[in-house]
């Protein structure tokens, strides 16, 4: 506790960075996953291609992606943007499938009713199908959020500061308080993001019973 009392400002700074590095890709990933998921649902052939491609991207270990990213997008190796892009890739990979499955789960008769009421194309997607898919998408988003927060800690190796720095520094200098603070802060951040998504999902789906929540 003494360590934390002396360093809480640094911890907060790192947590802020961490939130940025894990959170921005979550938003970017979701925005990109919606059209991909929609395409996967719309055309059966693209479903397999998109799901397989996403699965392969998700297979690449994070440390490898962080290191290879600058070679692909032409940035400096220590640039935080590498981490943001890499995390966005993971998020898209995870969510494209979720969005597709969520949209597929919208019952046919609902889509047909919407069409009959004059909902077409993009308006039907955003007005009817996506809102109904929110619980499924939120479940995927929760997985992505928790895993993003954990993966981002590895970015310390490529010189991008966030809560993972506390583990590495605590390990190198044998300061247990620092190492444990890092782990606890990371878990707290992950759970906070998770809770935020649960609340957001409930607010977006007021028609669901209060006890149901996002599965």
């Amino acid at each position: 506790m003494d360590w934390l009392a002396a360093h809480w400002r640094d911890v907060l700074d790192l947590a802020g960075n961490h939130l940025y590095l894990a959170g921005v890709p979550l938003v970017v990933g979701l925005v990109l996953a919606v059209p991909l998921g929609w395409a996967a649902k719309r055309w059966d052939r693209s479903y397999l291609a998109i799901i397989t491609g996403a699965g392969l991207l998700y297979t690449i270990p994070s440390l490898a992606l962080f290191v290879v990213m600058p070679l692909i997008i032409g940035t400096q190796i220590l640039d935080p943007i590498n981490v943001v892009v890499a995390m966005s890739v993971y998020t898209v990979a995870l969510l494209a499938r979720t969005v597709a499955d969520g949209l597929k789960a919208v019952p046919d008769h609902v889509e047909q009713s919407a069409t009959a009421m004059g909902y077409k194309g993009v308006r039907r997607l955003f007005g009817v199908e996506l809102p109904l898919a929110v619980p499924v998408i939120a479940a995927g988003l929760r997985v992505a959020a928790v895993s993003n927060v954990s993966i981002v800690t590895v970015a310390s190796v490529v010189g991008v500061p966030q809560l993972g720095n506390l583990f590495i520094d605590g390990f190198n200098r044998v300061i247990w308080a620092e190492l444990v603070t890092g782990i606890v802060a990371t878990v707290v951040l992950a759970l906070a993001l998770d809770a935020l998504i649960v609340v957001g999902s409930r607010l977006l789906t007021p028609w669901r019973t209060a006890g149901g929540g996002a599965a």
Partner: protein
Amino acid sequence: MNILFEWFGDPANWSGADGIGQRLWEHLWYTAVTMLVASAVALPLGLWVGHTGRGRWLVTLANSARAVPTLGLLLAASLWLGPKLPGDFAYTVPSIAVLAILAVPPLLAGAYGGIDSVDGAARDAAYGVGMRGRQVLWQVEVPNALPLMLSGVRSAVLQVVATATIAAIPGLGGLGRFIIDGIALADYGQAGGGALLVAVLAVLLEGILALLQRRLVSPGLTGRAVGGSRNDDDSAGPEESADPTVDLRTSV
């Protein structure tokens, strides 16, 4: 890209105690040992939970442990156990212990989820023709649960491969060494080369395991044997539902 070609092109990087061959071998060896240990614990446990319906909290507990950052766990274990162990064990034992712990949730979820999702009618029919609990488990539940169980195994293997890379930070061998040492020495050819090797290894393993899964799963489940007579409507085919890989995997 040139620095990559240079690194891969240098024969000195391929042989010896810290060459690509040796590091690749180490990486596969850690992965195999970890999977053996983790499977020995998680698969029987998952089958038991699924078959008896008892102890479901174990699965929930294992899943919620995923929020714990892998790197933090690795470093904490190394800092704690490392000084107590002699020689190379100081690096291998804590890392492999953590790798095994992290492989448990996907294995457990796959085994439990597989058994749990077996059609109740199939189970009832098995009891109805006079099978005992053990027979139902091995002759009906396990074959039906295989797609999900193997998805769990795939997720676990990929995760172990990825995490073993990170375990190079507290000093484990394997392909991660190239990345960590390369960055430490500002030798980005080495770091990038190592990263590429890890990525290729992961994708190759995923492909091999996917093929293996196709061969092991009963044709009656995948619909391969039935030829053209499958239901041709838009209901999700068994092949689709048999592959929920993404959700089982943890973060690394």
